[in-house]
């Protein structure tokens, strides 16, 4: 049993939660082989790369996965192929190639020795089997990306006889002998942007929840380490010095001392603050370390170490908007030098 006085350990607060979306455009440049492959897709041409051992890799890579040799010999392969394995996806997820139930497939295109991952449009799992013949369905609008292949479709869906390696025609030629291809196209694609979006539900944990709840009452709270007695603001639930949990709540401030500062001369995107402005470390009275905040209500070039400040709350602000001078005499250096 721990013997912490109950009055000092508030009950576990109700969990705070908020949506958190992480979105980024993943911009990648392409090397010569990937550039040729993705440009080829835009032109409805599938290229592979031949290894020194004579295998044809589709999709192509720039270095042999077996021996790391540089690969540059491009060949054109067929746009039809054989399913080497598959998996039926009854509930498509956001971003996947088809919105209706489909099969994930690995397809070995005619003339290739390796398989390409994509989606297969099919009415149901009973219509899919390993070894079946499928062909590329091109996207109506193509930009030089793997999604230029909209999906694969079953050869029989077009009422055509399944082309097999014995069938004649262009696919037959590709199957028997992948043709050398220069990899050169007009207006080659040299890069891709792969947008990513992940959705989370952010929950801050016990310590930060208590801190945020107190801020809603315009109080700033920290937590004291039971071992070193330091008061952490904002608290994260652990003393990083001692590696143990903090739980004793301590109200700090509202006034504090500027321990150090910098002058910001570059306007941040979407930030409605005129530059230059001052960003400072502020040791709130009673806190064991400084938090940071903006200093206002004083010209930027008059901010100084030791300046006494207090928080300024805006009408609907959920944290102090900035800190302003209190008018008190500056703090003596010895009172905050340990908090620098």
């Amino acid at each position, binding site marked *: 049993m721990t013997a912490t006085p109950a009055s000092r350990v508030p009950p576990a607060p109700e969990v705070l939660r908020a949506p958190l979306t992480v979105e980024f455009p993943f911009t990648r440049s392409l090397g010569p082989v*990937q550039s040729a492959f993705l440009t080829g897709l835009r032109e409805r041409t599938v290229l592979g790369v031949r290894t020194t051992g004579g295998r044809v890799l589709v999709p192509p890579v720039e270095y042999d996965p077996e021996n790391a040799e540089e690969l540059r010999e491009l060949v054109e392969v067929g746009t039809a192929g054989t399913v080497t394995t598959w998996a039926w996806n009854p509930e498509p997820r956001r971003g996947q190639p088809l919105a209706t139930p489909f099969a994930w497939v690995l397809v070995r295109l005619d003339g290739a020795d390796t*398989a*390409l*991952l*994509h989606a297969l449009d099919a009415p149901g799992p009973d219509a899919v089997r390993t070894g079946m013949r499928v062909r590329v369905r091109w996207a109506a609008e193509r930009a030089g990306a793997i999604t230029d292949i909209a999906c694969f479709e079953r050869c029989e869906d077009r009422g055509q006889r399944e082309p097999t390696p014995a069938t004649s025609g262009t696919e037959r030629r590709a199957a028997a002998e992948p043709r050398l291809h220069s990899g050169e196209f007009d207006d080659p694609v040299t890069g891709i942007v792969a947008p990513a979006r992940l*959705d989370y*539900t952010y929950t801050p944990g016990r310590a930060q929840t208590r801190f945020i709840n107190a801020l809603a009452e315009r109080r700033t709270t920290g937590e004291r380490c039971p071992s070193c007695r330091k008061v952490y603001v904002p608290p994260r639930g652990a003393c990083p*010095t001692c590696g143990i949990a903090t739980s004793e709540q301590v109200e700090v401030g509202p006034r504090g001392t500027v321990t150090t500062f910098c002058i910001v001369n570059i306007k941040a995107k979407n930030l409605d603050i005129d530059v230059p402005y001052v960003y400072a470390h502020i040791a709130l009275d009673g806190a064991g370390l400084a938090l940071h905040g903006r200093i206002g209500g004083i010209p930027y070039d008059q901010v100084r170490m030791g300046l006494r400040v207090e928080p300024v709350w805006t009408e609907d602000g959920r944290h102090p908007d900035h800190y302003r001078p209190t008018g008190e005499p500056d703090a003596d250096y010895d009172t905050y030098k340990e908090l620098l």
Partner: protein
Amino acid sequence: MRDVAIVAFSQTDHVRGSEEISEVEMLMPVLHDVLGRTGLRTGDIGFTCSGSSDYLAGRAFSFTMALDGVGAWPPIAESHVETDGAWALYEAWVELLTGEADTALVYAWGKSSPGSVRDVLTRQLDPYYLAPLWPDSVALAALQAQALVDAGETDEPALAAIAARSRTDAADNPHAQLRGARAQGDYVVRPLRTGDCPPVGDGAAAVVLAAGDRARELCDRPAWIRGMDHRIEPHSLGVRDLTDSPSTRLAAEGAGAFERPVDTAELHAPFTSQEVVLRKALRLGGSVRINASGGALAANPVMAAGLIRIGEAAAAVHRGASDRALAHATSGPCLQQNLVAVLEGEPHAR
């Protein structure tokens, strides 16, 4: 080379959601417990290494926050791997082998509940050919499972039996998330059913390593690391034979796993079908006790599940239930990366 052993292991109870606590709040009890088992304090530890992924929490540099739970003052020697903690253990093992430290603390955690782990894991795929299609982790495992079925290596009843054995064994594991038998359920991505897939959950684990006599001081029966190796295969699934795992076999050879039989194996197989591949690659016969803990099918905190396999194997040696145990960890789609460790107890110890 000097001998290095795992001398303590601790893990959280693994749960579907831990929204009331932050990562460091989840981690701290485990760190205290594992240190408490050895009597060591943070300041006594020579090297600290952790494994985790920012993509699970959706926040950059999340491991620096978790580090608050360690106590990093006075300054410590610390490192982090952005993958399963089993690889952090490998780094710590090398550190101890080279004599840079005598003890090491290794920990790992995964809090999957804030996001959708199936979607999150698509971001570890090649960004040119795979990631734009958003093939989720279950889909990729299902492609491998179908390849195994087509090859005659398994079938749905056999996969269901692996699921049942794992969850039944997990009934004795108080930390497991899924304990006891459960229905196989519907297809998630055919041929994999709910029962073939790991639970999504949050959890953490930690081990302490020590070298030579230090290990004997800290533990009655240290789990000596006789060998450890890790290998990788091409990222592209279409280049690999999905029914086999040559990287696991090679890692096992490098770790000395085939020199003498093992009696216990902890395999990091989040999907039932992956156990089929690993058993074959590791040449595990019927006499080997596999995943007595329930394995990743009973609790799969992403980034910690591999370290837990090594910890469970070590714990079996600690308590005398195993004399020679194999532990395996994986990362990446369809067993792309594999790590194998061989652990032994001293024959004359208690």
